[in-house]
């Protein structure tokens, strides 16, 4: 489909890019003290994007912009997830005292550009679009990680992020160039056709290129062994950005991985089979299963030793990436919609947990476990919500975290007995993670003095945001069939079932 014809299916992205431009323009006009008002434009634009995603949803077109982008319910699911988390993080940032004293207009502008990049990531079906989208997201997240430019920690975070990020995307690009050389194509579908005609003598080059591509993608979802940046970047960045980085790029990264490996390397029967047909020379699913097990184990084991809750959550987000990666070697339909459900639940509970950490950081001046002492008695709403988030992150019923984990584990077990060990490792890890999640709860309720004075957060925005995140975390643990159905439908269109 030509560029001009594609535009009418491109409204959400057009609105999103217009939002970014309007945000820059309005920031030109506002004085420094009014600069935070840019956020109104940004949030308004994002809401509009959200509405248009819903309005234009449902259709399934595979060749927008001369075959570089796809519009399908699969990308729609991820787009909604990304736009929602962007809006929530922007609202979170209103009350963040870390950002005080900085010009905030740029912050919201960069976030909307990043949301644009993430949305492109979910619908790219061309290697070029794939790379450009990843770079947009990376460059914007370098900015955001180092936004507190007078704060050495934030500086350090952005330095580490930029070095690891630029390096791994460079390696990925080299892998993509080899893939291009082997196949001569850039479209995922065309790549798949070309790969099926390759002789056995190009196997080595193909393996090399896939390993290189996995470096870039693994970095994006912070999988072991490309996770080294994660703890430092998450700890140094402004907390609102940490929350954002731990959710949105991960979701988009998983969407891209699923799309890329399914289309380019999947077998002919879409995703129905669990074999990666084109790549029989190496046991890829097994290798990725190993990486997944390593990711969750390392994330969990290091998280136990942390003193700072923010850093603990950073390692725990590595562990969660490991749980989500379990779905990739399986590559079955149930595995992927399990992953989608998990990501949705993870967005709610992780943003919630980081939001409470941010609040505690601002009010009680510290992000260590000790700062949480007695929080449950002083501020019951925050205490109960944080407990809920922690239980959900562990994956215990009756919270939404359990539902997410249940679907992923079910898919892994369903895939047959060669993956029982992976499910076993996953369960053991969940049990281990209980230790450090409950440690937060212990500090909130059993350490420090109990106070009789009960208070709510001063700002209504904080209260309502906590509720907006906590209530679905709880109720989706009871009533989740609409979400499951939605994920399932999104997937069916994608697979063409």
């Amino acid at each position: 489909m030509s560029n001009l014809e594609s535009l009418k299916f491109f409204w959400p992205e057009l609105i999103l890019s217009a939002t970014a431009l309007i945000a820059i323009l309005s920031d030109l006009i506002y004085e420094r003290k009014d600069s935070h008002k840019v956020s109104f434009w940004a949030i308004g634009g994002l809401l509009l994007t959200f509405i248009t995603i819903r309005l234009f949803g449902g259709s399934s077109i595979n060749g927008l912009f001369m075959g570089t982008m796809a519009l399908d319910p699969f990308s729609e699911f991820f787009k909604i997830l990304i736009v929602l988390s962007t809006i929530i993080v922007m609202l979170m940032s209103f009350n963040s005292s870390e950002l005080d004293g900085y010009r905030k207009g740029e912050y919201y502008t960069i976030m909307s550009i990043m949301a644009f990049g993430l949305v492109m990531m979910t619908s790219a079906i061309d290697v070029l679009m794939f790379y450009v989208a990843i770079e947009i997201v990376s460059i914007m997240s370098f900015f955001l990680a180092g936004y507190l430019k007078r704060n050495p920690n934030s500086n350090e975070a952005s330095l580490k992020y930029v070095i690891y990020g630029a390096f791994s995307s460079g390696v990925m690009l080299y892998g993509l160039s080899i893939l291009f050389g082997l196949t001569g194509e850039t479209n995922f579908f065309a790549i798949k056709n070309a790969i099926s005609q390759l002789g056995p003598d190009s196997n080595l080059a193909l393996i090399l290129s896939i390993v290189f591509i996995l470096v870039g993608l693994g970095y994006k979802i912070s999988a072991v062994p490309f996770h080294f940046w994660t703890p430092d970047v998450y700890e140094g960045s402004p907390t609102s950005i940490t929350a954002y980085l731990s959710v949105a790029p991960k979701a988009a990264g998983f969407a891209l991985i699923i799309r890329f490996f399914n289309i380019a390397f999947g077998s002919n029967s879409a995703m129905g089979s669990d074999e990666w047909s084109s790549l029989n020379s190496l046991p890829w699913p097994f290798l990725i299963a190993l990486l997944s097990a390593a990711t969750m184990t390392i994330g969990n084991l290091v998280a136990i030793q942390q003193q700072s809750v923010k850093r603990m959550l950073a390692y725990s987000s590595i562990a969660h990436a490991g749980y989500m990666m379990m779905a990739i070697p399986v590559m079955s339909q149930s595995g992927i919609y399990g992953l989608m459900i998990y990501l949705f639940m993870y967005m709610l509970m992780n943003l919630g947990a980081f939001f409470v950490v941010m609040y505690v950081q601002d009010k009680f001046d510290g992000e260590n476990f000790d700062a949480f002492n007695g929080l449950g008695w002083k501020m019951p709403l925050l205490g109960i919500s944080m407990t809920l988030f922690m239980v959900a992150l562990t994956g215990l019923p009756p919270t939404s975290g359990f539902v997410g984990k249940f679907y992923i584990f079910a898919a892994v077990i369903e895939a047959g007995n060669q993956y029982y060990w992976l499910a076993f490792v996953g369960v053991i890890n969940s049990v281990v993670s209980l230790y450090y999640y409950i440690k937060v709860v212990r500090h909130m309720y059993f350490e420090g003095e109990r106070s009789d004075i009960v208070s709510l957060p001063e700002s209504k925005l904080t209260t309502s945001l906590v509720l907006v995140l906590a209530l679905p975390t709880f109720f989706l643990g009871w009533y989740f069939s609409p979400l499951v159905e939605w994920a399932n439908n999104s997937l069916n269109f994608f697979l063409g079932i």
Partner: protein
Amino acid sequence: MYRDFGTILFLVFMGIVLIYAPLVIQKLLAPNDPNADKLATYECGEESEGSAWVQFNIRFYVVALIFLIFDVEVVFLFPWAVVFNELGLLAFVEMGIFLLILMLGLAYVWRRSDLDWVKYNVKYGRGRYSNLYKKSQTIKGS
């Protein structure tokens, strides 16, 4: 054919001779009497001072970065210009939008006074120009 290349060879030869002949002649004729002043590096008549490996003002880098961005974006104009005639109005409009977005970036940089050589409202930093902010405050105050 042969003669053409012969001409070129002759030109090359003449070029070498014309460059080296004066050098050799002045080497033979000129008196050789060096002293410290004569051997010093020529810096526009000033006495040279210190090493060349000094740190430059950080503003050099900021301006250079801004230049780099806008310079490289122009690379998109070349393929567009080559096939401009075949693409017609649509491509023109598309490029117009692209340039407009770039202009917006430039306007933003300008407005945030990142193009000014001396940026007075730098409040942080420990560089040797960090005193400028204080100076500008006292100038405004007096």
